[in-house]
């Protein structure tokens, strides 16, 4: 009995050695990763993402009727002061749901780069400064911005009443009577629009704001399903960890060298973590304001705005319980590290999303990498970067790796 068990162990050990030797000789030498690195690579893979976390602040987030209504609203240019701007004007589906411009262009020009909405259901914070804390409240910001959609709450409520009454009322109940309301009134409009808004009763203001909020919750339901599919990098990780068909998803030696730099000397992994390749946090990386632009304090201002925000998780328009608003309750409210800190963008499909930086300061990936390599001081606050001292070859390899993160964008089918 004893010797039989011993033979089995010897056989198993020999078999393991043979298999290991086989993998070693067939895989490219650069594809051998330590167990720790493999764990990290798995954590970056899109397969690790799973479904997006629930959004308890929006009870319509998973409702297919809200997805369908939100999709139509997303493309509707009537939701603007000049009838020409929709969400899709700056978040173009054919361009990664962004616009490729240094600064967003709605009815005017914004002060920052349009962020993509792909994969944002995984983030607790929205905009470069995190001044909103849900997809639905994010969607409301541009609608009331004077330089984006430029419209007001009564204007948007009347668009819903005229274009979407049946769909809206099936989901949210009866629309309020809007017949006697001013065409354009809202708390964030121009002086005349603000005055008209102030003249309305609390009850009317509340009922109109609820329609406005429900527009945001519908658009968010549509946006929630917009995410990334597997890239070459993800397929590479899958073959490493499953040891199946390694040739199908081989990365070039430069790309693998770039990946090693990403995890190691490049220190990219410090902020670009998790399957969306972002920590969804705020960092000062010393990116200067555009020439002539007003100083942008980033998260330092954004955190005050989200805490005071009418549409935050703890507010009366949120569907969440207080205990479900942990991100806001335990938010870092102050500190020098928030000054000129901006949200880490996802690196998925990054090569397709030039220009880079919170105000499109860098035209190419090479310029971004050069910035990280030099690590200039911040004009305000303190940059977290230190010079990387990478060679031109290493920078090229890092860029080659970043290009392996290109993959499909998945858009949910709406009825």
């Amino acid at each position, binding site marked *: 009995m004893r010797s039989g068990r011993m033979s089995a162990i010897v056989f198993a050990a020999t078999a393991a050695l043979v298999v290991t030797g086989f993998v070693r000789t067939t895989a490219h030498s650069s594809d051998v990763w330590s167990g720790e690195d493999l764990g*990290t690579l798995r954590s970056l893979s899109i397969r690790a993402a799973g479904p997006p976390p629930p959004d308890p602040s929006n009870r319509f987030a998973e409702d297919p009727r809200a997805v369908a209504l939100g999709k139509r609203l997303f493309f509707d240019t009537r939701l603007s002061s000049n009838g020409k701007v929709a969400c899709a004007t700056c978040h173009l589906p054919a361009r990664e749901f962004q616009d490729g411009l240094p600064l967003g262009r709605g009815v005017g020009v914004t002060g920052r780069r349009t962020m993509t909405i792909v994969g944002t259901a995984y983030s607790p914070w929205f905009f470069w400064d995190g001044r909103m804390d849900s997809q639905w409240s994010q969607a409301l910001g541009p609608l009331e911005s004077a330089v984006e959609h430029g419209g007001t709450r009564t204007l948007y409520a009347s668009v819903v009443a005229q274009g979407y009454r049946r769909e809206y009322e099936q989901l949210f109940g009866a629309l309020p009577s809007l017949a006697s309301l001013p065409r354009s009134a809202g708390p964030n409009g121009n002086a005349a629009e603000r005055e008209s808004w102030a003249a309305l009763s609390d009850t009317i203001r509340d009922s109109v704001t609820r329609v406005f909020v429900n527009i945001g919750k519908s658009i968010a339901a549509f946006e929630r399903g917009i995410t990334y599919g597997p890239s070459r990098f993800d397929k590479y990780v899958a073959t490493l960890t499953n040891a199946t068909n390694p040739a199908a998803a081989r990365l070039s030696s430069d790309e693998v060298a770039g990946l090693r730099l990403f995890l190691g000397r490049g220190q990219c*992994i*410090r902020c670009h*973590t998790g399957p969306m390749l972002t*920590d969804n946090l705020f960092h000062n990386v010393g990116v200067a304001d555009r020439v002539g632009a007003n100083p942008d304090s980033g998260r330092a201002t954004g955190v005050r705005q989200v805490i005071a925000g009418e549409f935050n998780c703890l507010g009366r328009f949120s569907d969440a319980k207080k205990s479900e608003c942990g*991100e806001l309750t*335990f938010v*870092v409210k102050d*500190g020098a590290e928030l000054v000129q800190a901006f949200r880490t963008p996802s690196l998925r499909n990054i090569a397709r999303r030039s220009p880079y930086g919170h105000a499109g300061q860098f035209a190419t990936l090479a310029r971004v990498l050069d910035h990280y390599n030099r690590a200039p001081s911040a004009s305000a606050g303190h940059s*977290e970067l230190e010079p990387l001292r990478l060679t031109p070859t290493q920078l090229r390899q890092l860029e080659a790796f970043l290009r392996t993160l290109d993959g499909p964008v998945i858009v949910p089918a709406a009825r």
Partner: protein
Amino acid sequence: MRSRPIASLATFATTSCVIALCIAATDAPRRVPVVPCTIQESWNREVVAENSRNYAPSRLTDGGKYRVTIRPPDDRVPMRTLHSWILHVEDMKGAAVDSATICIDGGMPEHGHGLPTRPAVTEALHNGDFRVDGMKFSMSGWWVVKLTIDGPPGPDSIRFNLKLP
């Protein structure tokens, strides 16, 4: 004439409430209100050799006044997810400390930054247990969690080390 009885009623109600609260407080079964408290370390870059870091989850405080045990959920710290911890605090005789003001902060000394959230002790439970909400770790590596504790044995502090995979 009308305001006087209302004012008396309000005074009576307030007094009753205060008395009721005092009774409730003295009768409360060792559960104490949590005093809001934060500490903010400046997480300057610091190099500490790996082999000189103590990763034990149950340790004595620096001044030896308490034994503190940290209990992340399922003894495993989740990554990039908001979660809660239980802290267990005992005095040097091994008796549970139920009444203490505890502040918590954390950071990555090697990287010179703090936690991405500002966690807090939100509930004093029985038997020396305290609930901490708002814990979140943004990346793998060496983290330090600092606690200051002020209970009947006096003020003391401790820095726990965590190695997150």
